């Protein structure tokens, strides 16, 4: 058995921040429709601190992919730099992963997506990565409508460098060392709405029942899906005075509604009275069933969603749930009118105009 993971990001083993898992498959383990066992969706043992919210998000990603019968190798996991960006090592080990440059996950993902539109692109980022150094790339990848699931694991703090405030820390919140943050926070959910993301949701790492269906909905969404997940940092931001601690988020969580994700294969049964539910039909045939919708919120109304979000924030509430979805959104490939074939499969026949054409071009240049 490998040694137990360290309880803090300050690695005790200087030469290893990843741990292999023993590969033991029990023959009776249940297989999903794609023929994989749940274990096939896992990754290496996490080296994050015990209790880190990020590990719950990794578990939710594993759960969502397993339940959606996604072939693990048809997923590309791309991240930047930071605690959150380390997590792609801890799920989907059969997928290619790319731990890129700090704050630059969105551009790498955009390029990867252009090269092969057939894979599912999971962009994993944090609040330092996406709200500070990489805020420009966050903004522009959302604007372009890159077909991706953009997950921000938001803890309001820099963990790997030990506890500095990040740009999503609330004004007036207190650091572990007792410093008060005086800067206004970056509201990534509000920005994503304004920038034209076609799927915008917020969640809490401690609410798996909400997070898993949201991830599934985002993974089946065609277009830029943005998911901000508040994910408490147990080591540096889980104390009294923090607004990203488990206790604070639980107390102030305003869950919009419950959402069921109904896959395209499942039989749709209606067990709610009309008016109580709103169904959103996605392109792949899946259905998002929203129930217990609050007064004044409509997930199909971008302006309304912005107003609702701001009204809740003014009351000191943290809104979680699906804020907005446009099931008919066009993605970057649609904007660029690209061929449905993955670029990385095209060869000379499709790409090279040939010698005769070049002769004609030469003739025009004389």
């Amino acid at each position, binding site marked *: 058995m490998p040694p137990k993971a360290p309880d803090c990001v300050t690695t005790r083993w200087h030469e290893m921040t990843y741990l292999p898992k023993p590969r033991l498959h029990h023959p009776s383990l249940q297989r999903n429709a794609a023929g994989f066992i749940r274990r096939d969706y896992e990754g290496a043992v996490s080296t994050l601190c015990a209790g880190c919210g990020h590990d719950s998000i990794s578990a939710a990603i594993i759960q969502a992919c397993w339940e959606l019968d996604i072939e693990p190798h048809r997923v590309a996991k791309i991240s930047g730099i930071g605690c959150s960006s380390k997590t792609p090592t801890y799920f989907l080990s059969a997928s290619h992963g790319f731990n890129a440059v700090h704050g630059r996950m969105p551009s790498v993902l955009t390029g990867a997506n252009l090269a092969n539109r057939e894979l599912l692109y999971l962009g994993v980022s944090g609040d330092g990565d996406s709200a500070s150094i990489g805020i420009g790339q966050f903004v522009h990848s959302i604007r372009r409508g890159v077909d991706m699931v953009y997950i921000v694991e938001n803890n309001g703090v820099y963990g790997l460098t030990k506890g500095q405030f990040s740009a999503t820390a609330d004004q007036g919140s207190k650091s572990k060392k007792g410093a008060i943050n005086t800067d206004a926070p970056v509201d990534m959910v509000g920005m994503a709405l304004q920038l034209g993301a076609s799927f915008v949701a917020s969640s809490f790492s401690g609410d798996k029942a909400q997070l898993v269906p949201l991830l599934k909905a985002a993974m089946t969404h065609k277009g830029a899906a943005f998911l901000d997940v508040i994910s408490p940092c147990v080591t540096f931001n889980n104390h009294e005075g923090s607004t990203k601690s488990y206790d604070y988020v639980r107390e102030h969580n305003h869950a919009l509604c419950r959402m069921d994700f109904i896959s395209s294969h499942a039989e749709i049964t209606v067990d709610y009275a009309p008016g109580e539910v709103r169904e959103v039909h996605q392109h792949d045939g899946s259905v998002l069933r929203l129930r217990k919708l609050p007064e004044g919120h409509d997930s199909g109304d971008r302006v309304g969603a912005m107003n609702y979000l701001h009204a809740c924030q003014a009351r000191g509430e943290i809104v979680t749930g699906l804020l907005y979805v446009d099931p008919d959104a066009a993605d970057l490939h649609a904007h660029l009118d*690209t061929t449905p074939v993955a670029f990385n499969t095209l060869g000379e026949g499709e790409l090279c105009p040939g010698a005769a054409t070049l002769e004609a071009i030469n003739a025009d240049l004389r």
Partner: protein
Amino acid sequence: MDQVLMSINATNDFVVKFANVNGSGSASANELFAKCILRMGVPVSPRNIFPSNIQGLPTWYEVRVSEVGWLGRRGGYDLMVAMNPQTWDADVAGIAPGGYLFYDSSKPLPKAKFRDDVTTLGVPLTDIANQNWDDPRQRQLFKNVMYLGALSALMGIERDVIVQLIGEQYKRKPALLEPNLHALDLGRAYAEQHFGPIGLRVERRDAVGKRIFVDGNSAAALGLVYGGATVCAWYPITPSSSLAEAFEKYCAKLRVDPETGKHRYAIVQAEDEIASIGIVTGAGWNGARAFTTTSGPGISLMNEFIGLAYFAEIPVTVVDVQRGGPSTGMPTRTQQSDVLFCAHASHGDTNHVLLFPEDPHECFEFAAAALDLADRLQTPVFLLSDLDIGMNQRLCEPFAWDEARQYDRGKVLTAEQLEAGAAFGRYRDVDGDGIPYRTYPGTHPTRGSFFTRGTSKNADAKYSEKGEDYVQNMQRLQRKLETAKALLPQPVLHRAAKPAKHGVLYFGSTAPAMNEAIAKLDADGMPIDALRVRGYPFADSVLAFIDQHQQVLVVEQNRDAQLRALLIEQFEIDPARLVPILHYDGTPITARFIVRAIGERVHAAEGARLRDDKVA
């Protein structure tokens, strides 16, 4: 016409400079002037000289006419077409003694504004335009065509050739043909009535052959289309923007699925150069051929990603159309000053492949080659062009493509190979050439996946901070660059007619001026061998060339002798063996400059040797 003693008489060998106002529509008339001469079979080399402005400020266009075929900038000018009152004084002052001044004489100018040793050719362009057209924009545009007409009459440019070219230009807008021809003939008639032919003459020859006339940025863009680039991410910057625009133009014609109308290309104008190189890195990682195009300031921003692509071994193609640096520097002037920077871009120990095209023909060839090299070597490859090549039309050999040519996608394991049990470790040096095997994401359900990272790792791509893993990897990267040497375009040697003690090394846009300088030095009895370097890391033959010569001069267009620094670094040779000749004022280097500089150095060396001999 005032007769001036000692007027310059030259046939097919002179320089005309046009001084215009930016935004006045002069560019197309000026280009037409150059093309007419080309169509008469006489080589020309035009150059745009433009400050960093959009409208209303000065711009120049210089056309060198050279029957023998020298395409470098000559220096000086024999005829000034002075269409910009703002720059009049300096424009007139620069005319070679015995030269000619063509200007709009609608408003009388004081005698002090002219020179006694220059033939003055005044044509009332504004007056004639006002008599013939009402629309102010038309007046302006046709004034340009009128001066073209007048010049053609003065210099013996055939009317039929101009008519043919105007016809080609307005193929799709026939309504514009007639007024253009009218303007042309108004200019011709005035010149014929008021002046005789001048001493600068264009006579028909057959010295152009099959060569084409194109700018380097268009050529590179076409090379990238032919080479199979599907993803282009870029951020606008002079002088490289026209490359991305040309790529888009060519793709729209050549890369559309004929059946569905869908695009086999994606162009993203990114938010900055960091995103541009990030997109290219992501696309390269995922198996598409991708490039970005930029200039020095963009390379500065891209450094972190370039280091990642080098260390994580991702194919990336970067075109750097160099301009004057550092900082914003001289954004519309030419230099070769990103050489050292690109060779070692990023923090930490890095080394990158560089390609140095001499003209648009090589821009095409090397752009296509860069995509192959990036895939083969799994590393960033830089095409180092510059403003002089990129933004000026240049006469060059026609583009060529071998129909049997196949893209070299490098060492990529397929699903079949993985299924058959191919051993895979992302960073293992299986073949001993430093180049590992890779897999594209999504290839095989259970084999071939790996994690790409900018942190250190072992040969199986697992995170590792072990010293030996790191060192082995860094040494393998060095081996890979060693492998690159043989794959790059090899140097081109020009041996002097007689055995030469001196050698000269040069690269890129210095070539046309150097060709002329070598011929001049030979004629002056100072034979010199010349080696044009076309790629970095340098081939071993470059060291052999240095060893064969008593003194080696390195000619380049930057202050810090950057190519020389790389030569000293790679070959670990005594710096005294390489004598720098540097030109970096933002104008393209000239043969006159090179001849003088080489002459001085060679004489100094000979003198020193004679002194040494006496002492001995």
